[in-house]
């Protein structure tokens, strides 16, 4: 397989509402930043891969067709990926394969969501015959799973609050992050309203408008500090079947093991990771699911995952601070690449050379991961 380099990274300033731009304007903002970072223009791009979550979030069917011009895709191949919440990651994986397969030399990939165009809670809450209702949105679906993690692990309640505080403090260092809560504290998280027990208001992700774009290339293309893709992996499992372990899903751990094997590393070689954590408790849960630590909650409690801890997690502020759903996975992948390029600014992990990007979706059933490094593999 050919190597693949990330030579351009761009994202929007994320916000609850971006009424200043159309969907095309939003996507274009991220795309132009990525191209500028790569020092390329649209004529250098061979193909475009676009991802987003359900079209019902904006009410436009297959919006990539209307966006063909804004994406600079006219006359070129244009793919549209949709794998639920994991889609931002899956989209980057598809784009990577277009390079590693030898099909294309340079690929632009972009993921986005403009949640203010519609009501995500509505789009996530439809009921269908013969299927369990998920009418309480994503939080209602995941809260019982978190309860089961707490029961199994005996984790104290303040672990969730710690993640919420850490991620929001990291977000203060990220100029693109949506939520900025300068005075956040364990006390304010604890005092925030209970939404879905045990998830409190400040322990949940926001709804955001935003986009993220990457330029992938078979060579450095003049880039002095590319991030090299050392491995990608995707895994899926069914949502419902007897004995399914939703706390520690096998598709998630299989996906992690596959990406470590492809990169030829053990998880302890990672310098940092961006994990898809939409509710605070998912940080300790994914830490265990991805074989990063033995006890997720103890790692959080001991500050291991803090920005200057032994294994920093969600340096960007994470999904807890920015959540344009379709873009959220790609933002994780982009932050991993920023870190190994040494370009993460105030949220940079000193000397980061190997980083993991992770995304999940559906009922904890769809996974996408990549490992990027500062060295060419």
């Amino acid at each position, binding site marked *: *397989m050919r190597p693949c380099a990330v030579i351009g990274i761009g994202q929007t300033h994320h916000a609850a509402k971006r009424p200043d731009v*159309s*969907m095309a304007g939003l996507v274009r903002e991220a795309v132009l930043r990525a191209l500028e970072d790569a020092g390329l223009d649209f004529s250098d791009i061979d193909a475009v891969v676009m991802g987003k979550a*359900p*079209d*019902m979030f*904006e*009410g*436009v*069917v*297959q*919006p990539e*067709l*209307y*966006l*063909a*011009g804004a994406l600079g*895709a*006219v*006359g*070129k*191949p*244009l*793919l*549209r*990926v*949709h*794998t*639920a919440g994991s889609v931002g990651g*899956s989209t980057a*994986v*598809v784009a990577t*394969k*277009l390079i*590693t*397969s*030898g*099909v294309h030399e340079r690929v632009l990939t972009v993921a986005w969501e403009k949640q203010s165009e519609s009501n995500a809670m509505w*789009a*996530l809450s*439809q009921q*269908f015959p013969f299927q369990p209702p998920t009418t309480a949105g994503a939080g209602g679906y995941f809260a019982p799973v978190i309860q089961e993690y707490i029961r199994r692990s005996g984790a104290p309640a303040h672990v969730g609050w710690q993640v919420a505080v850490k991620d929001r403090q990291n977000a203060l260092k990220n100029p693109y992050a949506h939520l900025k809560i300068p005075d956040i504290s364990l006390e304010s998280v604890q005092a925030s309203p209970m939404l879905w027990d045990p998830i409190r208001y400040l322990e949940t992700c926001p709804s955001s408008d935003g986009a993220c774009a990457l330029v992938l290339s078979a060579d450095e293309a003049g880039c002095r500090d590319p991030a090299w893709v050392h491995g990608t*992996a*995707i*895994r*899926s*499992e*069914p*949502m*419902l*079947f007897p004995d399914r372990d939703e706390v520690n899903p*096998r*598709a998630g751990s*299989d*996906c992690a093991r*596959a990406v470590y094997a492809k990169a030829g590393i053990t998880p302890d070689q990672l310098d940092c990771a961006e994990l898809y954590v939409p509710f605070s408790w998912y940080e300790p849960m994914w830490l265990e699911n991805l074989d990063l630590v033995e006890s997720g909650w103890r790692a959080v409690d001991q500050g291991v995952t803090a920005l200057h801890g032994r294994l920093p997690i969600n340096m960007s502020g994470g999904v807890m601070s920015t959540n344009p759903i379709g873009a959220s996975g790609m933002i994780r992948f982009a932050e991993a690449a920023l870190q190994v390029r040494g370009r993460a600014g105030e949220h940079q992990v000193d000397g980061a050379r190997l980083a993991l990007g992770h995304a999940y979706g*559906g*009922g904890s*059933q*769809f996974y996408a991961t990549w490992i990027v490094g500062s060295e060419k593999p």
Partner: protein
Amino acid sequence: MRRVTIEGFAEIPPVDRDLDHDEVEGVRITTAGALEQAGLGRDDVDFVCSGSCDYVMGRPFSFAMAVDGIGAWPPKAESHVEMDGAWALYEAWVALQCGDIDVALVYAFGRSSLCDVGEVERMVLDPYTLAPLGIDSLSLAALQARSLMEAGASERDFANVVARNLRAAGEAVDVQTLLAAPLVRDPLRAHDGARRTDSTAAIVLRADGVGPAITGIAHAVDAHHPGMRDLTRAPSAAAACAAAGGTRGVEIAELHTPYAHQDLILRRALDLSEAVQINPTGGSFVADTPMVTGLARIGAAARAVREGAGKALAHVTAGPLLQQNLVCVLEAS
């Protein structure tokens, strides 16, 4: 490029309204059928990719439960495009080019009976400048047909396309009778549009297998706004065809034509000579299931090669007025 072959193709025969299978059943039956033809089992599959559209199925994440149909346990490397399954097949072909896997399973499902296809197509239009005009896909198609007539085509040409397709599928049809039908959007008649159906289809790809070989596959997209395009042309179809190696030697072509007049545009874009047999299956006028029809065209072309054709071409389109096109060329192994 690595040689990739089509080892199995199965479909739930398209019907106007399929009340016998939900999408999980359809996926289970067709994927099992395609794997059986390929002489492979579920455990041999390295990668799965599917195509479907939430608005066609009337629900978000329509693909999520369909994963049950492939029995994704232990977990599978699996992905999904919100596009016709032909593009899922393209993604699977790319994955096989990476060289680290050998078998890919592709499926697609769709149901015209659950949605108003015209309404779904209207919602594809630019939400700021086009959709608010209230124009529907049929009216847009009529504008395209009118442009073709201004360039010399006639309503009789459109009727001939419909008649040829229906006759190929064994239906007795007379051009004069077709032309006597009322106009629904001048110059189009109801029969000028595809017959909307429900179905599911699956294809098994293998690196270096024994089935029909994909010797070229490519796709491209044109500008969205009709005002930015010459509606009598399909440059992205021509570009995809050229990138897929062209049509020299093609004996059979399976074209995806949501409207009869688009057959004329595509023949020119794909440079198909009179010698090429077009749509022996009857094409879109016999069955056109959203998100499935393209994968089924590729399946039909593979079947034609299995049955003796030296070289066959499958075409699929998406978006308003042939905006996006994919071409797949198959040859006997």
